[in-house]
């Protein structure tokens, strides 16, 4: 059995465990979904009727099995508030989150990796100090503050980007990019800083190895040494962190989605948690978990592509 197939099979018990965990955790959170949905209209009769409608009057095990049976059949059920199929709700919002994640990750990699290479390749030099300072600032800036500052500067003052909202890619590609530019930049800055610092450390680890000194002795230029010899050898920790970052962002960049009013998975999950919308939280977390595992699998497979020694193992 191939490595990938084994990893995929391993995902089944992991997802099962996750489903149990999230189901249990949601039941431990105080607050009755029927009361929350009814809000100020929560009369005892109304609460009772709604609890019956949501099957919340059944034993917890029966509730879990009912939900799990639906999930296995590909039916995540209906959400408590709108009676809408949850599968459709997730599918509607996933493209926004995926696109935001990809744009932010791409930006972070394009900025962060060269920054780290520059610093690590010339340790102690002006470029290194500048890269370190930029990285430190990037890591220190909270997303919510940066998002608001970007809105105020690039949207309100410069008028270059919309301040909020989302335009689907299929509807107007340019407007779509513009609508995601600031959110992606907000997410990318701290991630680029992390990648930059990590790349620098990895480069420093490699740059004094004998094969690098040999390459230098051969007369190779510094650029060729960095990109052809140092970077591939320093790439594994960088790819690992990039993979983790992508996984986290797929779970929904909640703060950024809130600030820029993006209809993504993060906002939906947060609303669902606040509303005690059990099936939405359970299903969304399960889907996010599956995606996280998938991204990790891809990351692991990339190790082999990057480093032949891993492939041989």
């Amino acid at each position, binding site marked *: 059995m191939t490595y990938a197939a084994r990893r995929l099979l391993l995902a089944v018990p992991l997802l099962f465990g996750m489903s149990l965990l999230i189901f249990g955790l949601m039941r431990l*959170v*105080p*607050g*009755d*979904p029927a*009361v*929350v949905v*009814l*809000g*100020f*209209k*929560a*009369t*005892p*009769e*109304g*609460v009772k*009727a709604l609890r019956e409608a949501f099957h919340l009057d059944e034993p917890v095990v029966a509730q879990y099995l009912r939900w799990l049976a639906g999930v296995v059949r590909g039916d995540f059920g209906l959400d408590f*508030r*709108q*009676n*809408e199929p949850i599968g459709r*709700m997730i599918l*509607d*919002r996933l493209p926004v989150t995926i696109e935001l994640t990809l744009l932010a990750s791409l930006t972070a990699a394009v900025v962060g990796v060269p920054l780290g290479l520059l610093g690590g390749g010339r340790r102690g030099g002006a470029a290194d100090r500048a890269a370190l300072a930029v990285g430190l600032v990037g890591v220190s800036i909270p997303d919510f503050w940066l998002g*608001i500052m970007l*809105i*105020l500067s690039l*949207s*309100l003052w410069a*008028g270059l980007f*919309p*301040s*909020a*909202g*989302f335009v*689907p890619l299929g509807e107007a590609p340019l407007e779509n990019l513009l609508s995601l530019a600031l959110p992606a930049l907000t997410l990318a800055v701290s991630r680029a800083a992390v990648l930059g610092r990590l790349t620098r450390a990895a480069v420093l680890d490699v740059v004094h190895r004998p094969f690098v000194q040999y390459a230098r002795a051969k007369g190779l230029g510094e650029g060729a040494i960095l990109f052809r010899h140092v970077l591939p050898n320093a790439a594994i920790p960088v790819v690992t962190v990039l993979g983790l970052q992508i996984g986290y962002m797929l779970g929904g960049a909640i703060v950024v989605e*809130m*600030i*820029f*009013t*993006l*209809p*993504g998975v993060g*906002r*939906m999950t947060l*609303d669902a948690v*606040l*509303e*005690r919308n059990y099936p939405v939280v359970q299903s969304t977390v399960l889907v996010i978990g599956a995606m996280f595992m998938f991204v990790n699998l891809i990351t692991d497979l990339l190790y082999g592509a990057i480093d032949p020694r891993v492939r041989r193992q």
Partner: protein
Amino acid sequence: MSERGTGLTRRQWLVGATAGSVMSLSSARRPAHAQAQPKRGGILRVATVDKPVNMDPGYAQLYSSLQVYQNVFNKMVYVDEAGSFVPGLAKAWKQETDKTWLFDLVDNAVFHNGEPMTSADVVFTFNRLMDSKNKLPMRVFFSPVQGVEAVGKYQVRFHMDRPFGPFLAMLSQATEIVNEKALKEKDPKLFPIGTGPYRFAEWMKDDHVTLERWDKYFRPGKPYLDKLVFYAPADDTVRLTGLQTGRYHWIQTVPPQRIPELERARDMKASAGKPYFPFYLMLNSSRAPLADKRLRQAIAWAIDRTEIVKLVYYGSHTVTAEPAPEGPWATGVNAHKGGPDLAKAKQLLADAGMSHGLNLTYMVKSQVPVLVKTGEILREQLKRVGIALEVQPLESGQYFEGLVGKKFDIAGAWWSVTVDPDMFYYPMQHSSSGWNFSGFKSEEADKRLDAFRFTTSQAARKKMYPELVRWFQEEGSLVIFSNEIQRYWMKPNVNGSVPLPSLELRFEDTWIG
């Protein structure tokens, strides 16, 4: 009462958007009423506080849904800025007897599915509402309605089992007329079909709802706008920035502390402001210690309303002790006039045997920062008379559970609906009401509330109302301390948008200059 506030989340029926204003109507700097000739065309992008969740008016679950679909449907009766009832789908009406009302309907209204609107639709709407099997939440507001009869194709008669004082007010608030065929054609929760000025076009969940002008609208020449797009950014600052950058043309709330600066801004204007949101404290009368009226009165005498409004609401609220401090139901009554009176408060505490001190809790939704801050100010104010107040900000699920289970001493809340104050007092203070969260039960209260509700002479009701207000102020189970001023902000070329006592966002008369 509902979830709401600055940076708030969900809101329910009867609850409007936040707003804020330092000014009263008379002092609003640049009122939205324009004298120029209305122009047709254009797209108005509107930013409200929260997203809609359900477009079926039968459920009217959240104000955030209601403010969108109110433009898709029509009611029989509306209320204007002055609080007077004006025609909707009913062009005229008369009260035939104490228990019957006759309505003449317009004969040119057409549903967005092409069906002409007739009396059958009105009968269907109310039968649907009143049928207990449908479990529609608005049913409770029409409990005295026995039935609706189609007298002719465009005439209906309502039969009540008792004289029903706030009947027109209820009609102006709670019943959009629906079409049976339309409900069967498409899921009404997702695809609203009414006779309103705009027809539903698109709903991109968590992002926007688009409405388009209905060319067969029964009022000739209306509406003016080609399209109306509703967005719901959750944050005040995001909404305001959107207005400044031109992404939105009309927004519902701005951060209260920025109002003075925004009033001077050239790139926006504000509508007139009206105090339509009573903010109040619920004092749990169903259990000790606040079951003792003297302790409730002590609190009412100890609080300094002016200080709360100044420190928490930056003047975006008006100081008041009654639900409707402006308009036809304003009374000016304040049983605690001259307060705070700390000596009187201390005396009441001593009379109740609490001169050694009293420990109370203040329950509030953590998502409503202004009410949390209100609690902090209250804590300092009550400390002056020996009451130790513990502020308990709770997440909304716990807050509602606390309310329903009456597990609190004091809870911060707000309500709206000032078209008729029956809609404030009856649900919250009548012993039979599920909304009576303060647990106040009194035969005298029920008698007074029933008299106010089941009297059809508006003159008689207005005569008895000031005494009703005073009586509840003295009982002290609800302590109203302020009233938020509803105000909208828009681009200078947007005209015809004013706050209404019904809190509807009616964009039928709105136009872009």
